[in-house]
């Protein structure tokens, strides 16, 4: 253990508590946003990140000749936002989000280093915290480039992120404020 959160200065515990609370609030809004724009089922995620079109699960390669389809659509449907992340947007998303995810994983890892847990558990927690964003974006890219079935990897990344945060937040809060020596 590099430092001991349980016996750390009150200011450090206050900082960690506020940081965790802020991350927690942003994660809740993140979950809400995922629900609004991508969804929680593999199909919804595949529709968001996979190839565009009416049948994204079927059509991945460009057709040999340009295909035109026309269907009636209502004004409401036309105005509806179909949030679809194409290749250019995914490049931009990866570029801007990966550094932020790394910083969040690093902050939570620094907190994990101060927890009274076995060394292997500390390694595992840090690995989980960093694996989550990698899984998240690997899933998006694999869904885009290989198969929509990889949407499940993105979902696994999201749940791993929630799990990592919950483990660190629960243990840190308990050890800082209840199980003090």
């Amino acid at each position, binding site marked *: 253990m590099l430092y001991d959160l349980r016996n750390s200065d009150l200011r450090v515990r206050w900082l960690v508590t506020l940081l965790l609370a802020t991350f927690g609030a942003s994660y809740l809004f993140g979950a809400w946003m995922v629900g609004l724009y991508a969804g929680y089922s593999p199909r919804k995620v595949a529709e968001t990140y996979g*190839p565009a*079109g009416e049948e994204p699960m079927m059509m991945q390669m460009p057709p040999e000749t*340009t*295909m035109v389809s026309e269907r009636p659509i*209502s*004004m409401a449907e*036309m*105005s509806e936002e179909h949030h679809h992340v*194409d290749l250019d947007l995914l490049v931009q998303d990866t570029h801007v989000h990966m550094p*932020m995810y790394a910083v969040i994983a690093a902050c939570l890892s620094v907190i994990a280093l101060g927890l009274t847990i076995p060394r292997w558990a500390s390694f595992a927690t840090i690995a989980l915290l960093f694996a989550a964003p990698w899984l998240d974006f690997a899933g998006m890219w694999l869904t885009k480039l290989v198969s929509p079935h990889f949407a499940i990897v993105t979902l696994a990344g999201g749940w791993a992120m929630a799990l990592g945060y919950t483990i660190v937040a629960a243990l840190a809060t308990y050890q800082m404020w209840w199980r003090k020596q």
Partner: protein
Amino acid sequence: MKALLLGAAGAALLHITPTVILVKRQDAVARLLPGAEQFSARELHLSSTDSRRLHDAVGWEPPDGIVTFYVGKRQAQTTGALVFMRVDCQHGPLELAIGYDPRGTIRGVEVTKATVEMKPWVVEALRAGLTDSYRGITTEQAPAGAEKVKSQIGAMPGYMAELIDKGVMHANAAYRLFYK
């Protein structure tokens, strides 16, 4: 700790600001396809050859190989077509709606979305009359709205105007080459 704080500040600076709606899609449709009572979505899944044609024409192709035109009709007569076009830059995406009349000339252009950071620049360019210059041009003509308003606006609004020109140029090429 110092490195961590610098990293966090850097990541925050890199983050693209959220998207804001400048014109609701519904309002853009009403303005660009006036009088239309029925609508249809014409989806073009471009072949690699056609994607390349588009790329050779304007240096752009739809990232997922699909262009969707929304066609407006009134009593079985086509009143026009509309396409939503996204233009990306390092400040985030812009979304345009480009409307065509039945002859294939531009009826109007609306900027439907921008980011929080880009909004004031876009609004300044629009106030200078940027989109007026697109009205009535054919799909063969190069949009030159930026050139017309640049002397009245700042550098960043000028840059936004160039991006809007580019989006209109992409839409024109897609319409000219594939809309039938």
